[in-house]
Each structure stands twice: as C-alpha cells, then as structure tokens.
C-alpha cells in the first residue's frame, strides 16, 4: 500500500460564485455550497463565513472540523462508507488543502438531557488566550453554520451534520483536480530495515455501545463491542476513521481532522526506516463495562501486537474515567508479553495541579508522556465578531445550565471547551512538570 498525499496550501479564501484554486487562493462558490447543504431536508438556514487567524472572532456551535481531501487515484474515495463506497482506501494519490479547514457549526439541542451521549458543541477563538491554546487557531476556516430541523434524534442529526461537512470539504478539494501540488509526501510501510525495532501504535477508543453512534466510526460503521483490529495508517489519511459529530471536538473527543492528521501516526512515519519500523495501528475499543471485559479487551490488543511482532507500542487513547483502566490493563498485558510500552496521555489534576493527574495506575506504566492538563481555567476576552449558530452559548452541557453571551468575556473552568484546547495525542508541546 502506497499513498501519495499531494499538498495544496491555502492562504486565502474568497467567497464568490465559482470554485477555483490557484496561487494559494481558494475561491468558493458560496450559493453553490449553500445549495449543496440545503439539499438535505434535515438542514435549514445554512450560511458560510471565513475566519482568519488573529481576527477577534469567536466561532460557536462547533460540531466537527475536517480537512478538505479528495482521492484522484487508487481505490475508493475519501470517507469510505460515508461519502464513498465501502472499499479499501489508503493507496494511490489523495489531494489535500492544507492550512485550512471546514468547520461544521450547527444548532442542535438533542433529545438526550445528560450522560455520555448528550449533544455538545465547542467554541474556537481566533485571537487571544483561547487561540493560544488551540491547535486550530492558526488555520483559515470555512465555517458552515446551519440549523438542524427540530425533533431529530441524535443519529439523524449526526449524519446530517457529517454529510454536510464532508460533502463541502470534498467539493473544495476537488478544485485541485488536474493541478500540480506544491509538495507530495509518499507514505508506505513496505520497506523495512531489519535491524530496527518494530513499533506499533495502540489507539484506544472509548465507545458507548448502547448509543446509536458509539463515537468512533470505522468505514462509517460505528465501533461497538469489537475486539481490537489492525489499521494501516494510510487508511486514516483517507478518512477510514470518523467521529460522532454531535459530540466531537469537545472534552476528550477528537475531530475528523485529528484522525486525518494523527500526530503520533505522522511522527511514527517520520521515524520509519530511520530509528524504527512502523508496524501500523491497533484500533482498540476501550471502556468495557466490566472487569472481565476490560481484561479480555486489554489482553486481546496485546495478543494482536504480539502476533504482529511488535517490539514496542505507543499507547494512547480517547476517553476519560474508567476507560483509563482498560488503557492501563493494555499496558500491563503488553509488558507481560515483553512488548515495551510508552503511554501518551493528557492529565487532569485539578485547577492547581495538586490533584491526581490520572485516575488509575499499574506499575508497568513506567514510561508516560504528558500532553498537559485539561483542568486549567481560561479567561477569554470579548470578541468583535461571533460566527456560528449561537449568539448565546452554554459552557456546560448539564440540564438547566444558563446560557451566556458568546460575544462577551468568558470564563472557562477547563481547557477542553475550546476546540483543540486538549492535546490528546502529543501534537502540541505542552506538558505537566512536577513542582
């Protein structure tokens, strides 16, 4: 499997009445895109805006962020099982518009009042302290704001949001067909250096099997009580793993863009053939409800790593709470098979960093990289402009939470309300240090 990613950087977006790409300028047919979105009867009132880094702009109602990509060769299409047919992806050539994203910002109140599966949305500041902590504030964003028709249940709302954002992103990337890219990076794992260790990534994913969308989509199918499965990193680049858009981007949930540009995958590719052989990804379901489930799931992932002849694994996760027990059990199971582990995780630790940074330990987890703490308050200044469906937002998704003006200064009690404010997979340079 060999994938060429052809890069088309975007430095400027112009809303007009045609689609084109050239000299790092993306021209967007605004009415055309709005029509594309409104074809779905579940969506009303779509509008489009552009947000630039450094502007005093706050984006509200963010459901997901995606990088525009389009496959020009190889089997399948980006987002197989959602946009394209259910076919192998990860081979051939894929075009990407880099430096920009499509943000789906939707008004949706949901039918679930609380719990893991309650709908939630995030905000993004393009300026000030909020921008400083988010990996997304340095991108140019095409923000698509819309409303979901009332009464839709969560899965319907999710598919409406996801189809809209993926279709738009795909349409934008198609402007580059026939053009020559600024850069091509080739990704393949076939060439192995016999003297280097075989290193895999174990990606734990919290899933809610009882919910209509478990939180992690694999070729569009939501992962439930599955055992671990092997994933070629190139499949990620073509959108084989996706999110639940009624919950993504907030707290410990990644966005689609994070899966498309997984920092540990990119770093392992960078090291491939230099200091290690990258052996691919083990996609593991975590947060089994019982001790039995947690042990079986952990040992199953370790057996798969062993069968793939891994000498070492990076272990990382999405989730919180008891899902971390599954992660720690996985580390223990790997170490017992002689597979060396390093964990990459965010921390909690409370506002002052005096509380327990993580919720569970095993003694085998002796190599951990910290990506910083979520539990830090953040004071945000007033903004000149609000983009997105909400002029008033709820900082907390709990029943009865009072809405506050999105334009005014905000005080956040945790960094994860800002999309990209939590570093899940070591893309950023923050860490916690012991004092």
């Amino acid at each position: 499997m060999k994938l060429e990613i052809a890069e088309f950087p975007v430095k400027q977006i112009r809303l007009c009445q045609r689609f084109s790409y050239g000299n790092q300028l993306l021209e967007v047919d605004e009415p055309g895109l709005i029509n594309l979105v409104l074809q779905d009867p579940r969506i009303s009132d779509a509008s489009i805006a552009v947000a630039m880094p450094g502007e005093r702009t706050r984006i509200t109602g963010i459901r997901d962020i995606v990088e525009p990509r389009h496959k020009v060769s190889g089997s399948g299409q980006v987002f197989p099982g959602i946009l394209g047919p259910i076919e192998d992806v990860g081979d051939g050539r894929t075009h990407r518009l880099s430096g920009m994203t499509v943000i789906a910002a939707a008004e949706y109140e949901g039918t679930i009042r609380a719990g893991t599966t309650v709908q939630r949305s995030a905000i993004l500041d393009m300026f000030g302290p909020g921008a400083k902590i988010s990996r997304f504030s340095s991108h140019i964003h095409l923000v698509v704001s819309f409303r979901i028709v009332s009464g839709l249940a969560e899965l319907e709302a999710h598919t409406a949001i996801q189809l809209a954002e993926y279709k738009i992103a795909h349409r934008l990337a198609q402007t580059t067909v026939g053009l020559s890219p600024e850069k091509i990076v080739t990704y393949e794992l076939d060439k192995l250096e016999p003297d280097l260790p075989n290193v895999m990534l174990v990606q734990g994913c919290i899933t809610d099997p009882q919910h209509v969308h478990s939180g992690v989509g694999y070729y569009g199918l939501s992962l439930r009580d599955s055992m671990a499965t092997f994933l070629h990193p190139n499949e990620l680049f073509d959108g084989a793993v996706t999110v639940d858009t009624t919950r993504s981007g907030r707290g410990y949930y990644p966005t689609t863009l994070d899966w498309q540009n997984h920092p540990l995958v990119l770093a392992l590719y960078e090291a491939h053939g230099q200091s290690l052989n990258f052996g691919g990804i083990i996609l593991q379901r975590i947060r089994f409800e019982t001790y039995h489930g947690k042990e079986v799931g952990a040992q199953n992932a370790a057996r798969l790593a062993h069968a793939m002849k891994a000498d070492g694994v990076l272990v990382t996760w999405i989730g919180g709470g008891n899902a971390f027990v599954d992660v720690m059990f996985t580390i223990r199971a790997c170490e017992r098979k002689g597979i060396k582990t390093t964990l990459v995780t965010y921390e909690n630790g409370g506002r002052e960093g005096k509380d327990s940074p993580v919720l569970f330990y095993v003694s085998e987890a002796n190599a951990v990289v910290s990506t910083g703490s979520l539990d830090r308050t953040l004071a945000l200044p007033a903004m000149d402009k609000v983009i997105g469906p909400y002029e008033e937002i709820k900082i907390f998704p709990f029943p009865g939470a009072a809405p506050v003006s999105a334009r005014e200064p905000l005080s956040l009690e945790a960094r994860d309300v800002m999309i990209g404010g939590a570093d899940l997979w070591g893309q950023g340079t923050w860490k916690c240090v012991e004092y």
Partner: protein
Amino acid sequence: MTTIVHVVNQFFAGLGGEDRADMPVGVIEGSAGAARGLQLQLGEEAKIASTIYYGDNYFHEHKEDALKAILEAVRSAQPQALVAGPAFNSGRYGVSCVEVCNAIANALGISCVTAMHQENPGIGTYLDFANTRVYCLPTAETTAGMNDALKRMAKFAIRLAHDETVGSAQQEGYIPRGIRRLEQTNRPGAERAIEMLLKKIKNEPFESELPMEVWDEAPPAPPLAQVKERRIALVTTSGVVPWGNPDRFKTYRNTHWRKYNIAELKELEPGKWETVHGGYNVAYMNQNPHYGVPLDALRSLESEGAIGPGKLYPAYYVIPGNQGSPAVMRRVGQEIAADLKKDNVEGVLFVAT
C-alpha cells in the same frame, strides 16, 4: 543584608537530647548549635537573625501554642526566608519542620526550606500541604549528611530570600510536592514519546513524565449486626436528582453534594427525577430512578421488617461521581460521613454507578 531565621529542635540547638524533648519554644539571638554550621555555609551572603528551638515532644503535644510562639518570633525577626532542620530520619522533628514551614509560609508569606530523608514521615505531611512556598530537600538518613545538607539548604535559602524563580523539582533537586504545572517544551509530545519508547526498547535509561501514585486503601467496614435496629441511609454517586436539576450539578467534576427528602415517598416516580451524570447513558435511569436510588426495594425491606420502622433516613445523599477529583471526593465523603454521624446513622447503602 539578607536575613534568615533557622528553626531547629532542642537537640540541634545544642540544648539536650530526649530528656529535654519537653522544652517549650525559645529563641536565641544569632546562630547556635547546628545553625552555626548553616551560618558558615551562608557566609557573607546572609545572616541568621535568630535561632528558634523547641522540644520534639513539646511541639507535638502543644502544637497550637508552639506554632503561635514560633510565628511571633519569626514575625519580629522579619527574615526574607526561613530554614527548618535538616531532620534526617527523625520523624517527630521532620513533621514539625514541615508544620512550621507551612504555618509561616501561610501566615507571613515567607518562603521556607527544610530538608530530611525521603522516608521521614514529614514527607507525607509535606505532600499533604503541597504548599507552593515550602520546599524540602532530600538528605542522607543520618547526621553524617549534615554538611552536605546545610550547604544545599543555605544555597536554596539565599535564592528564596532573593525571591528568585524556583524551577521544577527535577531541575532544582527538591522533593516534588505533587504540584503539576503546565509548561511548554520545545518538542511535541509525539516526538518525546517515540524517543522514550526507543530508549526503553534499547534498555537505556529514560525518564517518565508522570510519576506513579500510590492510592489509599479503604478496607471495607465489618458487617452490621442486627441491621433492623440500625438507622440506615442511602448515599449515591449515580447523579439522580429532582427533575430540573435545582442545585445545578454538572455532568462531571462536581464539588458539592446535596440531600433530597424521601420521607413521604413510597417510590421515585419517573419524570419527577432525572439523572445528571456524564459517565453513562442516563436514559434508563431517567425511566427508572430506582436503579440509582432503590427506594422501592428499601420500602419493601421496611414492610418485611428487615429495616426497622422509622429506621430509614428521611433523605438520600447524592453527588454525580463522574470524573470526580480524588481530593474533592475525599472531602465530600468526609462531609457526608460527618453529616450522617451527626444524625446517628449507623449503616449506609452506597449505590455507585
């Protein structure tokens, strides 16, 4: 001139051993006993204004008085930093050094340094306080390490006195207090992770960025005899609250608890209660709140006589447990337990989720 105060026990003040451990707090002008060694290390850079001493037993038996007297003595000396110890492996002394530092730092805003062996019980107190103005340096087990300890303490004290920025525990060599601060490094976590893993694979030394923590053990209480004569209460982390969430619990990281009256109720009617919890799918609990607050079962136990008449506490206690911070939950548990005790509750049905 930079001014330092040195706090020592009676032994290191040169005033006697165990037989003098009942000695109250006293002050010697300038340096005395072990403080002479400290003054030697401070050299010309700082002067010990006074040496404050106390008997090891006196301190622990009259802690409030002792701290008050020490506070007054330090206040009148107006130092820029305080040095306590070193205490090596002496437990009573180690704990008192940390107590003194903590009290002075809180009351006067003066930064303090103490020193002791890693296994001194004082380290536990140091970690409990996690005071940002108190630093503890590791020492040898015995006074054989005196010179080395005083040398490092003197250096540290001068820096504290000059209000210099103190870096991380690893950079500066003090014992980490369990305070984790966000810092920016010059390399992404992904790169650091690969480097750490490769070192581990090659059996080279590596340093984890997250130390392991040892958890409290909570042994289960012995079973209650004659349950039907006991006053029983229900405590839950399920997050079942009256519909509308009147006390504004959040779905995660809560810091307060409430109790809600159930005295007149036979059962919890769906629609009048709801579940505020971010850690599970609450739809089923909303349909049947008894999964979290099994009042129906308790009422049948009452009618069967397994719970005595009037023995069920008239309210249940609740905090949604999701992502609860251990320190907050420890405090909440203590508050609820105190409230239960006050009302003579003898047994608790604890419903977790």
